């Protein structure tokens, strides 16, 4: 028998899981070397190794799916389950930071003044830049839906335009948050308020950057004719991830920025 008689994908041996694991080790030990001994080489090597792993692994997935036809309907179903499970794991990741925030803010200790926000903390006005950030992300949710429907209706020009607008809005959010970080009167070292604020919003910002990168990859692939009007799971995965990032922001805005002020 020279060809498979089933619809599944028996993936060829690949070095990327190993390089991924090694880069994770370099990243963790690199952080320790940096924090405790001010030595950055391990961390830099780990960042380079993990970036290369991600690029090459995902490049291979695109090759297997788009160019070699391995992504049959049952294979795609498995990829869908995978993305859903990954996003669920990310929800749990953020749940931890929200737990920390609520644990400290629902029962403020006497050491910080017995109220929330603690004494000496001037929180950001939720009706200024945070509100703009909310409008930006909600708008990006609309534009990405427009992009998806345009893609399904085989409208190349509009799906590219809408995707570009989504990326621009994501970049604008990142720019606004970075300028907010420079303008806050409180810092990460300002007790439990600073810790919970910057850990939660910081990791969210990192996820916005990751999501924007994912969308940009989709834009490049779209320009290279990788997607069809009925088969574009990479785009759908990026859209799911982007909506997740938007929803996390809404929880952040309501909990930390609004209720927490």
């Amino acid at each position: 028998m020279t060809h498979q008689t089933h619809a599944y994908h028996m993936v060829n041996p690949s070095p990327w899981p190993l390089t991924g694991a090694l880069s994770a080790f370099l990243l963790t030990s690199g952080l320790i070397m940096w924090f405790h001994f001010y030595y950055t080489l391990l961390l830099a090597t780990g960042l380079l190794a993990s970036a290369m792993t991600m690029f090459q692994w995902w490049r291979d997935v695109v090759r297997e799916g788009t160019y070699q036809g391995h992504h049959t309907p049952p294979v795609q179903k498995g990829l869908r389950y995978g993305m859903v499970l990954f996003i669920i794991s990310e929800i749990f990741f953020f749940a931890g930071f929200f737990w920390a925030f609520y644990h400290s803010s629902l029962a403020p200790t006497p050491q910080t003044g017995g109220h929330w926000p603690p004494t000496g903390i001037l929180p950001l006005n939720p009706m200024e830049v945070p509100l703009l950030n909310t409008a930006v992300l909600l708008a990006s949710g609309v534009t990405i839906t427009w992009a998806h429907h345009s893609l399904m209706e085989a409208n190349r020009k509009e799906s590219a335009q809408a995707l570009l607008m989504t990326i621009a809005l994501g970049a604008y959010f990142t720019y606004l948050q970075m300028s907010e970080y420079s303008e806050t009167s409180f810092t990460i070292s300002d007790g439990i308020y600073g810790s919970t604020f910057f850990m939660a919003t910081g990791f969210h910002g990192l996820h916005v950057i990751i999501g924007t990168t994912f969308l940009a990859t989709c834009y490049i692939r779209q320009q290279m004719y990788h997607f069809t009007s009925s088969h574009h799971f990479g785009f759908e995965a990026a859209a799911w991830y982007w909506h997740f990032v938007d929803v996390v922001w809404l929880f952040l805005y309501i909990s930390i920025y609004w209720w927490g002020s």
Partner: protein
Amino acid sequence: MAAAVGSRLSRLLGWSRPQLGRPMSSAAHSGEGSARMWKILTFFVALPGVGVSMLNVYLKSQKEHERPEFVAYPHLRIRTKPFPWGDGNHTLFHNSHVNPLPTGYEDE
């Protein structure tokens, strides 16, 4: 069991879906003109909303903010370990105009 729950959920939500997997189908048909609806929402709701919020921020930023007086609270400006950059005493997004060091504002 999942199918039973799924169909109960469908009935609860008033959707007539034949099976639970339907909305995730890659061959999900885009309703005629639904891209046009999202395009209209983009240009008439979403982007104007962003514009109004931008205007709001611009107007609010016109007011000069006075910075609060420095009080050396023990629960703020914590330095149990130096930061692994610079002199170890400045946060990553340090702004000397609004962020005092544990000893006070740098420009006073």
